[in-house]
C-alpha cells in the first residue's frame, strides 16, 4: 500500500518535472532507511532483554497454582535468547543478558549454565555440543490447558515479537486438560536429549524382559524349598530326619548344638518363604531366557552359593544389616576406585599411579602378620631387599597399566579381576597367579568403568569415547558397541538376567541396552547432573541411580518412570547397592556417609500408581551411618546380606 503511494508520488513528480524535489525525497528516504536498519540491530538486543524481562516478571507474578508451569517456559526462552544474541554477534549484550538473569536458573541448571557461559562467539555455538543440541532440537514442555492459554494471551497482548519468535521456533507445547500437575514431579519438565522426546517415549514403550533368568541357582533353591515344604506338610518328623541326613552329607561334625541351629535356620527360612510367597502373590518376577550363552557354574561353586542362600539374613525396614567397613590408609590421595569380592575376602584398589593392589583379608586377619608388623617397622622397610619386601607386603601388587586406574571389578568368584584405565585399555588379571592375562584394546579414550556380568565370562565397559562396549573374556575385540550417549559414559551396570546393561552418562541420562541387539531399550531422563553410580534390584525390576549432586533416583524399568528423586547426600553418590531381597538400598557418598533406604514402601507406591504418574512417594531413609572422614567408594551386599563398604581415609581431617 505504502509502496504504491510512493510510486504514485514519484510518478507524479517525474511527470511534473520536479527533479530537485525528487532527489531530495530520495536522499531523505535512503537516510531514513539506513537509520532504521541501524536502530533495528541496536534495538534487537534490547528487544530480547526487555521481552525476556517482561515475560519473567509476568511469569513470577502469575497465579500460584500455574506459576510453576509458566516458570518452566523461562529457562528455554532464556537460553535461546542468549544464543540468538550470540549468533547475531551482540557479544556484549549477550553477556549482560546472561549475567542479569542467570541467577533464576542457577538452582536447577547450574552445570549447564556454567558450560554455556563460555560461549562467546558464533563459532562456539557451532562447536559446543550442548549449544548445538539446544539449537537443533525443540524443547517439549507440558502445560495444562489454562497455563497455555494464559501464555498465549500474554504473548499476543504484549506484542513481544522476539519472545513469540523464540517460543515458536524452539518450544513445543504439550497441552493437557485439567489441573496443573504438582510441582514435585516436574523433573522431566525441561530436559534436553539428542533424540526428541517422542523418540524417547517410543524407546520406553518397547517391550522389556526384566524378569530373572530361568533355571538360575536361586530358582532351583526356591524349588527345592517348596518341595521341602511339601514334605513338611507330609510330616514334620520326616522333614527333620531328612534335614538331619542333609546335614550329615554336609559333613557336619558338631552334633546336637548344630542340630538346633539348623532347625532354627529352617524356621527362619520358612518364615522368609512365607513372606516371599506373600509378595509373590502380588508379583512374581517372570522368568526369561538368557540371550547370551552363559557359562555353567562348577558344582562346588553352586554348592557354596546354595549354602549362602540358606544362611541369608532377611533384611527389612526393621532388620538392618551389619556393615563391615574396609578403610584404605596412607593412600596419599591416590586411590581412584575399589571393589570387594562377593564374600568380602578380597579387596582391590585401583590407584592413580597405574597400579592395582589386592588385599586378602583372610590373611590380614591372622594375628601377628601384615598390619601389625608393618606398623612397627614401617621405617625399616626401605632397607629390606626387594625380594624380602615382596614377601613382606601384605597385598599383591599388579602392575601393567600406563595410566590412572579408574575401575576394578571382581568376577563372581573372585578368580579374575578386571581393571580399566586411562591408557584406553582394560586388563584381566588372575587373582590366583597374580598376573596379567589379557589386555583388551578397543576404546579410544580412557575407560571409566568396567563391570563383570553376574554370571562371569562377559563384561561391559564405559568410556570417555561415549560408547559402552560388551566383551567376553576370551576375545580381544568387543562383541557389541553401544553408542547413543551424547557425552561420556561414566558408569555401567549389569541387569541380573544378563540380557541388559545400564549405563549412566555425563549427558544426565541413564540408558538401558539390549546386549543381544546392542539397541537402546530404555532411556531415563531426570537427573540434573552427571550420573556416577547405578544399581539394579535383584528381582530385575528396579534401578537406582545416583548423581554428582547427591540425588538418588529410583526407576521402574518396565515403565521407565521414576519415584520422585531425593537429595540423598550432600556430595557425589559414589556407590549404590541393593540388598539381596531388594528390600534395602544402600548408598555411599563423598560426604562420608552410608545411608540405608527403604525400597519396599516406595516400590509399592510405584506398583499401585501404575496408571497415573501422581506424586509418587519418596525413598524413606532408614539409617545414616557416618564414617570417620572416609568417603565411601564401594558398597557390596554379600550373598548372606552382610554389607561391605570401602573407602580411603582422607588425610588432613
Amino acid at each position: 500500500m505504502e509502496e504504491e503511494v510512493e510510486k504514485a508520488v514519484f510518478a507524479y513528480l517525474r511527470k511534473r518535472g520536479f527533479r530537485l524535489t525528487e532527489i531530495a525525497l530520495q536522499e531523505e528516504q535512503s537516510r531514513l532507511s539506513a537509520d532504521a536498519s541501524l536502530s533495528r540491530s541496536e534495538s534487537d538486543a534490547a528487544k530480547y532483554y526487555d521481552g525476556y524481562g517482561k515475560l519473567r516478571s509476568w511469569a513470577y507474578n502469575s497465579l500460584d497454582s500455574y506459576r510453576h508451569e509458566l516458570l518452566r517456559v523461562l529457562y528455554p526462552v532464556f537460553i535461546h535468547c542468549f544464543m540468538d544474541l550470540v549468533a547475531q554477534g551482540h557479544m556484549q549484550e549477550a553477556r549482560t543478558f546472561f549475567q542479569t538473569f542467570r541467577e533464576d536458573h542457577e538452582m536447577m541448571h547450574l552445570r549447564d549454565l556454567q558450560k554455556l557461559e563460555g560461549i562467546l562467539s558464533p563459532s562456539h555455538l557451532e562447536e559446543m555440543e550442548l549449544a548445538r543440541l539446544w539449537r537443533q532440537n525443540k524443547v517439549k514442555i507440558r502445560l495444562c490447558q489454562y497455563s497455555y492459554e494464559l501464555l498465549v494471551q500474554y504473548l499476543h497482548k504484549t506484542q513481544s515479537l522476539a519472545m513469540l519468535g523464540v517460543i515458536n521456533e524452539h518450544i513445543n507445547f504439550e497441552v493437557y486438560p485439567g489441573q496443573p500437575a504438582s510441582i514435585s514431579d516436574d523433573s522431566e519438565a525441561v530436559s534436553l536429549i539428542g533424540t526428541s522426546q517422542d523418540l524417547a517415549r517410543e524407546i520406553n514403550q518397547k517391550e522389556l524382559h526384566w524378569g530373572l533368568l530361568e533355571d538360575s541357582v536361586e530358582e532351583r533353591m526356591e524349588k527345592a524349598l517348596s518341595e521341602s515344604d511339601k514334605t513338611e506338610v507330609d510330616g514334620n518328623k520326616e522333614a527333620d530326619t531328612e534335614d538331619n541326613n542333609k546335614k550329615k552329607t554336609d559333613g557336619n561334625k558338631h552334633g546336637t548344638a548344630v542340630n538346633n541351629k539348623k532347625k532354627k535356620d529352617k524356621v527362619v527360612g520358612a518364615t522368609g518363604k512365607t513372606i516371599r510367597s506373600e509378595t509373590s502373590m502380588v508379583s512374581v518376577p517372570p522368568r526369561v531366557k538368557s540371550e547370551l550363552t552363559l557359562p555353567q557354574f562348577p558344582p562346588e561353586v553352586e554348592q557354596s552359593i546354595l549354602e549362602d542362600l540358606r544362611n541369608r539374613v532377611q533384611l527389612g525396614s526393621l532388620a538392618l544389616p551389619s556393615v563391615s567397613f574396609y578403610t584404605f590408609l596412607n593412600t596419599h590421595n591416590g586411590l581412584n576406585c575399589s571393589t570387594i569380592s562377593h564374600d568380602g575376602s578380597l579387596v582391590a584398589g585401583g590407584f592413580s599411579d597405574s597400579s592395582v593392589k589386592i588385599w586378602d583379608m583372610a590373611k590380614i586377619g591372622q594375628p601377628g602378620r601384615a598390619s601389625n608388623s608393618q606398623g612397627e617397622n614401617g621405617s625399616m622397610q626401605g632397607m629390606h631387599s626387594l625380594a624380602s619386601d615382596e614377601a613382606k607386603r601384605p597385598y599383591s601388587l599388579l602392575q601393567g597399566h600406563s595410566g590412572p586406574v579408574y575401575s576394578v571389578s571382581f568376577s563372581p568368584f573372585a578368580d579374575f579381576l578386571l581393571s580399566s584405565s586411562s591408557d584406553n585399555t582394560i586388563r584381566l588379571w588372575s587373582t590366583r597367579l597374580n598376573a596379567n592375562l589379557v589386555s583388551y584394546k578397543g576404546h579410544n579414550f580412557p575407560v571409566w568403568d568396567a563391570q563383570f556380568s553376574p554370571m562371569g565370562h562377559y563384561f561391559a565397559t564405559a568410556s570417555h569415547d561415549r560408547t559402552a562396549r560388551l566383551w567376553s573374556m576370551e576375545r580381544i575385540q568387543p562383541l557389541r558397541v553401544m553408542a547413543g550417549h551424547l557425552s561420556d559414559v561414566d558408569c555401567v551396570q549389569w541387569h541380573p538376567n544378563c540380557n541388559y546393561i545400564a549405563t549412566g552418562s555425563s549427558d544426565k541420562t541413564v540408558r538401558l541396552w539390549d546386549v543381544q541387539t546392542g539397541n537402546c531399550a530404555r532411556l531415563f531422563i531426570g537427573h540434573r547432573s552427571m550420573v556416577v553410580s547405578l544399581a539394579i534390584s535383584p528381582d530385575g525390576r528396579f534401578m537406582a541411580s545416583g548423581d554428582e549432586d547427591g540425588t538418588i533416583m529410583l526407576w521402574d524399568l518396565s515403565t521407565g518412570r521414576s519415584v520422585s528423586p531425593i537429595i540423598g547426600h550432600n556430595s557425589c553418590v559414589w556407590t549404590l547397592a541393593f540388598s539381596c531381597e531388594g528390600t534395602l538400598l544402600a548408598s555411599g557418598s563423598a560426604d562420608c556417609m552410608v545411608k540405608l533406604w527403604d525400597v519396599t514402601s516406595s516400590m509399592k507406591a510405584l506398583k499401585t500408581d501404575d496408571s497415573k504418574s501422581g506424586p509418587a512417594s519418596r525413598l524413606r531413609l532408614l539409617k545414616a551411618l557416618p564414617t570417620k572422614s572416609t568417603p565411601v567408594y564401594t558398597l557390596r551386599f554379600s550373598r548372606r546380606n552382610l554389607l561391605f563398604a570401602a573407602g580411603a581415609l582422607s588425610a588432613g581431617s
Partner: protein
Amino acid sequence: MSIVPKETIEVIAQSIGISNLSPDVSLALAPDVEYRLREITQEAIKCMRHSKRTVLTADDVDSALNLRNIEPIYGFASGDPLKFKRAIGHKDLFYLDDREVDFKEVIDTPLPKAPLDTAVVTHWLAIEGVQPAIPENPPIEAIVAPADGKKTDHGKDDSLPIDLKLPIKHVLSRELQMYFDKIGELILGRAETPLFKDALLSLAKDSGLHPLVPYFSYFIADEVSRNLNNLPILFALMRVVKSLLSNPHIHIEPYLHQMMPSIITCLVAKRVGHQISDNHWAIRDFAAKIVASICRRYGHVYHNLQSRLTKTLIHAFLDPSKALTQHYGAIQGLSALGPSVVRLLILPNLETYMQLLDPEMQLDKQKNELKRKEAWRVYGSLLLAAGSCLYDCLRLFPGLLSPPDILPWKTNKKLALTNLPNNKRKASSRLTAHQPPSKKLAVDPAGTNSQFPSTDGPATSSSSGSNPNHHHSHNSSNNNSSSTGNITNTNVNINNVTGGGAHGQRVAVSNVLRQAWKEDMDAAHLLSSLHGLFGEGIFSFIQPAEMHCFI
C-alpha cells in the same frame, strides 16, 4: 567482555616472543582463550570425579590435557591440592606460594622417612544397623544404654534370633588389653611423666573404652586398698577415676558402686600415705571433689546415693573415737556436697564438735605438735564449710545485712568484751583476712603456731553473743567496753533470746543456733553464732561490698 582481559593476551604473546600483536587480534583471541579454559576445566572436573575426589588437583588438569591430546603442563604435579595465596591488594588474584629451593640445602638435608605403605583395615561400621562406639567410628553424641547382646555379635553374619541368653564370654581385643596394661603400668610406676597426662586425656575423651570399665573399677578398688600408704599412686588412681567419670562415651553408672568405696576410703581413711611427710590433705580434698561431682551427676538417678554417702560421712564426723584426719575428710566431703548439706548436717553439730576440738588445738592441753596441727586443719576446714554456707545464705538474701535502716541501730549497739588481749585478736583477724576464702585456714601450720603461742583458743573462748559485727566496731571494742548487762540487752534485741549473762553464754549460743536452724534463712543469726564460734575468721566470707556497708 571476556573474563580474560586483552592485556593478558598481550603479556602471554610477549612471553613467547610476539612483540607486536595488534589489539584486534588480542581482542579476538580473548574470548576464545576463555572458552578453551572452560573446556579444559570441565574435562578436568570429569577426571576428578572419576578419581573419586572432590578437590581438583594439578593431575586432573594434566589428564584433561591428555584427553585433548595437548602436552600437559609439567612441574605442577603434586599429590595434594595446591596451596594458593591471595595477592595483596587484589580481591580475586591468587598465586602459588612457590619458594626458591637451594640445591645445596636439598642435598644436605637427610632423606625423609619413606612414606607409609597403603594398608587396609576393617572395622564394624554398624552391627544390625547400630553403630558400635569404637574409635574407628565417629563419636556419637551420647551413648544410649548399651543393649545387651548387640556388642557380642561380632563376626557372625548369619544372625539367628537368640532365644537363650547364655552368659557371654567377654572377649577383650588385643589392643584394649595392651591399652589397659599400659595405663596400669603408668599409674603404678610413672604417674609423674607427661605420658600419664596424655593417658588421662585419652581416658577422658576416647570412645570405645567401655569394655575396659569393669577392669578399671576392679583395678582401682584393688590398688587403693593395697597402696594406702603410697600417696602418689593414690593420687594417680583418683585422677584416673576423674577421667573415667568425665568420659562422655562411658556408661559408668553400673560401676559406681564399685568405685565409691575406693574414693571414700581416700577421703576418710585414718592414714593415707605417710602421715608426716606427705600432703595427705590434698588427696582428701581431691576425693571430696570427685564424690561431690558424682553426687551431682548421678544423684537424680540413684536417690539413695547421696543419703548413703552423707550417712557414712556424718558417721565419721561425729564419732569422737575417730582420728582427726578422718574428721577432716568427712567435713571436706560434706562441705563439697554444697552449702545446704553443711547447714543441715554440720552446723547443728558444730557447737558440740567445737568442744571436742577445742582442747586439741591448745598448746597447753595437747602437747603433741602433730595432733595440734591436725586439729587446726580440722578447724580450718570447719571454718571454710561454715563460711561458705554463710556466704551462700548471704548471696541468696543479700538484704539481710545491708538494709540501711538497721545500720544505725546496729552501730549503736554495745559490744561484747572479749577476755582476750585485743592485739591477739587483731593478729588473728589479720591472718584470716590474708587467706582467700577458698583456701584452708591453716595452710601454714608453723606460722599459725607462732602466731598463737599463748592463745587459749582464740575462737571458742571468745565470749559470744555479739551481733552481726564488723571489724571497725570490734577493733575499737576496748573503747566502748561495757557491762555484761548490755550484752544481754543486745542479745535480746537481736535474737529475742535471753542470754544468761557471761556464764550462761554457751546456753545462749546453743539457743541461738537452734533458732537459726529452724529459721534457716536467717543469715544474720547464723553469722552471729558463727562469729561466736570462729571469731572474726568468719568475716572473710562476707562479700566485701556488704562489709563496706557496715563500715
